[in-house]
Structures are given as structure tokens and as C-alpha cells.
């Protein structure tokens, strides 16, 4: 095996199942065990592909966060009409008295029950 290949092998990145589950938690996705397995492979595959980026020297390059080249775009502090309450709620699956309703959130404080 030549040095280059050794180097490549060393860089191969595989995500653990735990990592995949942790990412899913961060992303608020619930995955089945099969999905965890599948993504474990696919994400690793993609991670290895994007390692080509390391071939390029970016020491002198500033990151490009915006393609527009614009800066300092603001609006004045003026009120514009809101949408109506009915419009705001129109697409919601669960409502109560003009509020959006969700299942009880556990982290409440005793005072607020």
C-alpha cells in the first residue's frame, strides 16, 4: 500500500450508531432502528466524499457566507398590517381560544400549572 492510500484509509470516517441517534435527537427526528443503520452508512459515505475539500488550501480564504455581496440591509421601524388572528390560525391542526395548542410541556414550573 502506498502512502497516499494509507493516508486515505486513515481518514475514513464512520459514524457510530450512538452518533446517528444523537444527531437525530438534535434534529428532532425519531428514527427507526433500520433508519439509524441506513443513515449510519449513508452519512459516512457522504462524509468521506466531502473530504476532497481537504485537498484545497484555504488558509488565505475568508468564508463566503453570502453570495449576494450585499451588506447593511435594514428596514425602518414602521408598523405594517399584521395578518388576522383567523389567518394566523387557519392552517393549525389544534387550537384553543385563539391559541395554538400542543401537548403539555413537561418543563413547566409549579406556579404555572
Amino acid at each position, binding site marked *: 500500500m502506498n502512502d497516499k492510500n494509507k493516508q486515505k484509509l486513515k481518514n475514513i470516517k464512520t459514524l457510530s450508531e450512538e452518533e446517528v441517534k444523537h444527531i437525530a435527537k438534535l434534529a428532532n427526528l425519531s428514527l427507526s432502528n433500520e433508519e439509524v443503520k441506513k443513515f449510519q452508512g449513508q452519512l459516512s459515505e457522504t462524509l468521506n466524499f466531502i473530504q476532497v475539500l481537504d485537498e484545497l488550501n484555504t488558509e488565505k480564504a475568508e468564508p463566503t457566507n453570502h453570495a449576494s455581496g450585499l*451588506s*447593511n440591509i*435594514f428596514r425602518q421601524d414602521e*408598523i405594517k398590517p399584521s*395578518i388576522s388572528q383567523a389567518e394566523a390560525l387557519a392552517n393549525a391542526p389544534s387550537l384553543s*381560544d385563539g*391559541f395554538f*395548542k400542543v401537548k403539555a410541556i413537561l418543563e413547566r414550573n*409549579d406556579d404555572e*400549572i
Partner: protein
Amino acid sequence: MKLKRILIGLEIHIELKTKSKMFCGCSAVHFEKIPNSQTCPVCLGLPGALPVPNFKAIESVILIGQALNCEILKESKFDRKNYFYPDLPKGYQISQYDQPFCLNGWLEYKIQGTNYRAKIRRVHLEEDTGKLVHTQVKGKSCSLIDFNRSGCPLVEIVTEPEFDSSLAAKTFLEKLQKIVRYLEVADADMEKGQMRCEPTVNLEIEDGGKNYFTPLVEIKNINSFRFVQKAIDFEVERQFKDFEEKRIEKMPGNKTTRGWSEKKLETGLQRTKEEASDYRYFPEPDIPPIFWSDKQITNFKELFKKIVLPDKLESRFISLYGLRPEQAEILCRDKETAFYFEKCVELGKIKKITSLDIVNKLINQSKKAKQFADLSPKEFIEKIGESQKLFSLNKEEISLIADRVLKENQKIQDEYRKGKTQVLGFLIGLVQKEAKGKADPRIVQKILAEKLA
């Protein structure tokens, strides 16, 4: 085991008093409005909606930063802070990460005449979340969401963890509130949630010659200055006991969040911070970066210079009008009273009414019921003028009356000289009687005391 040091850091959120929200044109005045009546695609996080930053909010943050002696960053940007919570409509909050508008400042505050300096880490701008109400509908527990507050501009101020007492933290917060009110960028009413404070507390404990740090605890749900103090005090005691029992030390990842309960007057565990700690910040692609030119920075500085802050006003009142520091402090608690006082002083000059006359009246009045609030400075001065007109006798005239009274009451004079000084009041009364109430009692007292000495 000995408590060596208390370490308190403050994270303060203050709602800015702009007309419209941070990134859309909805009204930012949300207190007690009909739920979900002040929203739009942007602040509801509807698909495809895009944020456009409100310049006034940015300007306000930069004013606060300057008042806190911060550096204004020439290059700034907004970032996305990603996390999931039902009151956060987009699944991320637009905030600022590594390039906030202002960095590295300080603020002086005074406890019992001694000055302390709190270090400010950063001042940044972000958007508020919606409001959750936890309740029951048809017997089932649920949470209701109102997005009127969603997207309102919120400034976040983070201090270094260097306050060593709950009193220091509370005093600092009061000072901060006074400043943002002077800047007229926020109302900062804690009861209304316009100013929210989350102290992070831990302790340094000495035991057997070794020092230990207790795990960090962030306290939430505090809605008054009084409770800031109480919550911290509670937490200090709790952490000390907890350490005695469990001896758990501060470690990366063991920071917890505790909620303050007004009813129980205690803090209770909310959630472990570990779960939500990876916010995956990245530059907000929907908002181009911000670069301030030298001219713009100068403009911000000019704007700031025009605003008088309480410290400056207090020293002016002391040096210019001869007020005592306590008097100056009382008058400068809010800008309105301070400016009212100055106006009165100016108007009083013509009528020969001194600043001391005004300050006494003002402080007395504000102690009772803010009567002066209904009066214009001109009316107020006239009122003082009238009461002073009653004392139409000058010093010479009063002196003549005093001589007469003393002559007629030799016996009492003698008693006074023998040390029975309380008879002075009686003598003042006699002079006043002779003067038909037209003598200023303070002058009468002064003259009598001189003559009797």
C-alpha cells in the same frame, strides 16, 4: 467546610421599545393583546417568509453597548441558533454568535457609598419567542402558544461571573434598568417581563485546605429585583448544603437550570442543559452582514453623546446645585423627575427660589403622592413662590422681633443658656406669633440661635 466565595454571572434580556418587531412590520407592543392577533408570515415562521432587520433596534442595542462602555464591533452579523421548542416558530432563533454588536464593557454601581465595577462580556440583539401558557383544556393538561411576542427585539447582556453577593447583582440590575430607561430604548419593567434576568450561580467552598467549585446553576422565571436577591440567596444556601451532602463539583456538562417559584420561595430543577447545548450556530443566510463605516460609528457616538445618563446627571446636580449625593440619587432615579427638577431650578432662578428649596419640596412630595406630576414646572415654582411669599419678613425685620421677644422673656433665655435647649422651640413660636406667621421658621431658628449663643 467554609463558603469561600459566591460567583454570580448575569444574563439579562430586555425588550426594546421599538414600534415594530425585529424582522417584520408587526407591532412590537404585545402586552395583554388578543392572542395571535399581531403576527405575520415572518414572525409566525411560515414557509418562505424572510427576515429584514429593524435599524432602530440595532441603533438601540448600540446605545446600550455604549452606555455599558463596550466596544462597537465594525463587522457584525446575525446567526441562527438552532433548537426546538414550541414557542420558537422557525426551529431557530435569529441571534448573534461570534460577532455581536458590542463587546467587552463595564458598568459601575454603588453599594453604601462604595463604587464597584461589573465587567460586561457582550451585548447582542436577538428575537423574542412566543409565549407559552400551561393550562388545562377539557380536563387535559396542555400548553397554549401566543406568537404576538414572537420576533420582538430583545437585547441580551451578559456579564462576567464576578458578582459576589445577591445584593451586588440586584444593585447592578437596578442600575442597568435605570440606564436603559434613560436611553429611552426600553421600559424594562420586570413584572411585565420586559426585563428578564437569569443569574448563573455557583460557589467556591474550602474544605480541608482545598478549594472546590459547585456545579453551575442557571435560575429562570424571576420577575422582580427582590426575587433576584431571594433566589440567589436561596441557591447559595442550597448549593452549600448540596455540596456538603453529595460533594459534586463543577464539570463540563453538569450545568443545570432551576426555576424560581414565587409561591414556595425556592428553586426547582427544570431540565439538564446538556440536551439542548448544541445550538449549531451558523451565519444567518437571509440577512447580509453588517459593516459599519467610520462615519456610521461616529454617528452612533454622536447620538450617544446627546443622551444624559444618570451618573452624569447626579454629579451635575451635586456640583452645580449643591445637592447632597442622596438627594441627587433620589431625583435621578428616573429621567422625568430629574429633568423636571432641572426645569424648576431654571424657572426658580428668576423668582429667587433656590435649588435646595426645590429639591426639598420635590423629594417630600414624591414621597407622599407624586403631586407635582400634575403640575407643570412653572406651576410648581409658583406654588413654592406662594408659600415663600407668606414669609414676607426679611432677616432684619425678624431680628428686631427676636430682640423684642428675648427682652420680654429673660427667664427663658437663662434656662436655655443653662442647657435647657428645648425651650428654643417655645421662643420660635413666640417670634412667629409676633411676626403673625410672616417669618420663615428656619430663619427664625437661625437668628435666635445666634442671639442666644
